[in-house]
């Protein structure tokens, strides 16, 4: 276990009743069950728990109760977005551009700084294109990166065991990993690569500019297959705080990436709601798997572990808006390619250390 900085959230007591408690890692799938957190630690999970004196009780109304999510690959530290998206633990390392000393002490997620947390980017330094080489890049006059850029990297620099490798984005790259059958290797991906394809950049939509660039829908399907069969072991947000100024530049100069922490869980629920995948195989990718890799106690629902849980309505229909601080859907606030996408499912409550830190109104 690594050193933990003081948590900005005070330890709290809370009893959540009538919840659908779900955690495949612990074999939990209990409907109408209760979960008790005392002093910031999960005390008990059972079908009925009597509220101890003075403990706040909330009725989950049958919604899903999941362990708080863990995000181990992001560019910008954005605590409010993380809480909005049900992310309760952020893991930083060398590859993240942020410096943990500069973080504001706001009521935010747990922050873990691992000295040896390093992510290998599966792309050669010589690849400088803006889009995937092919018809779309040709028509738009954008420099393309080779279709087999990811596979070439894997062949040239076979990754070492216990390396975090990602974001993986191509069908053939993932297929190559699948055949390597290296258990120590941990591949990760970002939500952009299973929710968008290269057509999102048509019309020079800089919001959909990513590096590595978005690929064909064939590759997107390949990423979903890899999520289902365990080739990809971790999903991280790749969160980049973008503003209108970053994105209202010519395509080549615009900032790459999207604010993804708010929508990460919703995009996973899109896969379950459309039948492309199921929560049994997806939930460990954002909870138990990163927790095990970084040797963290959270990420599971078990008595004695930190009281970080989220309440999720898996089918609530709404339209995504990454810039949650804005109430209106004004054109200039739209900085994420997923904005205004009609989706189902959202986080309705984020609880860290037994303390409610976010509540969807």
């Amino acid at each position, binding site marked *: 276990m690594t050193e933990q900085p003081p948590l900005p959230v005070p330890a709290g007591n809370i009893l959540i009743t009538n919840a659908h408690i779900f955690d495949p890692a612990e074999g939990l799938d209990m409907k109408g069950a209760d979960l008790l957190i005392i002093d910031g630690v999960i005390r008990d999970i059972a079908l009925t728990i009597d509220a101890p004196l003075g403990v706040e009780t909330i009725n989950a109304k049958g919604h899903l109760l999941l362990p708080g999510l863990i995000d181990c690959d992001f560019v910008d530290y954005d605590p409010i977005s993380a809480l909005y998206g049900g992310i309760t633990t952020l893991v930083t390392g060398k590859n993240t551009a942020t410096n943990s000393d500069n973080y504001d002490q706001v009521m935010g997620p747990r922050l873990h700084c691992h000295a040896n947390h390093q992510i290998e980017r599966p792309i050669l330094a010589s690849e400088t294109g803006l889009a995937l080489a092919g018809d779309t890049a*040709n028509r738009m006059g954008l420099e393309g990166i080779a279709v087999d850029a990811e596979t070439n990297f894997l062949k040239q620099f076979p990754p070492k065991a216990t390396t975090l490798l990602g974001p993986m984005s191509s069908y053939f790259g993932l297929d190559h990993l699948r055949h390597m059958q290296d258990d120590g290797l941990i591949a990760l991906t970002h939500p952009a690569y299973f929710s968008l394809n290269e057509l999102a950049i048509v019309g020079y939509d800089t919001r959909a500019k990513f590096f590595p660039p978005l690929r064909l829908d064939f590759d997107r399907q390949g990423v979903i297959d890899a999520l289902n069969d365990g080739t990809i072991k971790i999903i991280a947000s790749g969160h980049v705080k973008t503003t209108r100024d970053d994105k209202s530049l010519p395509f080549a100069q615009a900032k790459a990436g999207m604010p993804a922490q708010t929508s990460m869980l919703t995009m996973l629920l899109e896969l379950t709601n459309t039948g492309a995948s199921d929560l049994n195989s997806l939930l460990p990718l954002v909870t138990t798997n990163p927790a095990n890799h970084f040797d963290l106690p959270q990420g599971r629902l078990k008595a004695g572990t930190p009281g970080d849980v989220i309440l999720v309505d898996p089918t609530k229909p709404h339209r995504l808006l990454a810039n949650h601080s804005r109430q209106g859907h004004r054109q200039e606030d739209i900085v994420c390619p997923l904005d205004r996408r009609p989706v189902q499912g959202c986080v309705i409550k984020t609880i860290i250390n037994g303390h409610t830190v976010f509540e969807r109104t």
Partner: protein
Amino acid sequence: MSDADNTTQTPHFSDYRRAMVDPADGGPKFRQKHFLAIEGMDPIAIQYLLDKADHYADFNRQPLKHSDLGRGLTQINMFFENSTRTLMSFDIAGKRLGLNVSSFTASTSSLKKGETLLDTTTTLDAMRPDVVVLRHSESGAVAQLAEHLNCGIINAGDGTHEHPTQALLDALTIRRTRGHIHGLTVTICGDIKHSRVARSNIHLLNAMGAKVRVIGPESLIPDEIDRMGVEVFYTMEEGLKGSDIVMMLRIQKERIENINSLSLDTYHKHWGLTPERLNLANEGAHVMHPGPMNRGLEIASMVADDPVRSLITLQVEMGVAARMAVIDALTEPTRALAAQSS
């Protein structure tokens, strides 16, 4: 005429008109607010611009070449990339139509002082121009700026994306020389990968029913270019056979020198247009070049200066006419409004 008779004729593009999509006869034939790209343009709108340009080509051959059509309208040429001939061509086109024309290039603007591109453009928009001609070194920049401007925008070239007025003037040159575009085999040779002229020409020639081929070294032809509707050849000997028009592209010397397997000498040896190579093309084939030319690299002087087969100076002449047609078409609604209120 019976159906059997029809099968012997190649259908003209207008035979494919669909009632619900295309305007009824007599309706407005050009309904675009901007002229940003050839891709996606209605062939009828292209035809309309070519007809107009044809008229201006004759108009420009009169001793007095001035029209009061655009009197009172303002045109701003914003060139964020160096250019002399295109800027001059737009300048003359606007002035011949009677517009007030102002030009600036990036070196004279406040972009150098750190102002963002969008701010510069909105500042100029506040001066209430009626037509803005934009050139920028990044693909897509012109289309992005068009969203923030209230007047008609003409794309004078954006990065490696499109150069639509060049395609229009090339089509006009072909039409005036050959009488038609439909059915011709047009071969574009050179650096297809980095050429906006090639992209616009591929779209326009395909829309007008020509057969388009591209020739170039493998490293300068992008993957999947055939999906844009072209036939790909890697040697001049194969590609030129059966061509009616040979369109050479300007080669940037740095680009050739950056490719390990190529040198300027080998480029000229394999892909330069010499009189002997031109003889492989169809009899009476014409040669075009958007300029400026690298004599002795992509084109031999013998070919470039051939008075019968080279259309290069005609292209420059048609450039003014084609640009006048676009300015005319884009200012049509404003002029109609002005006529109504007076």
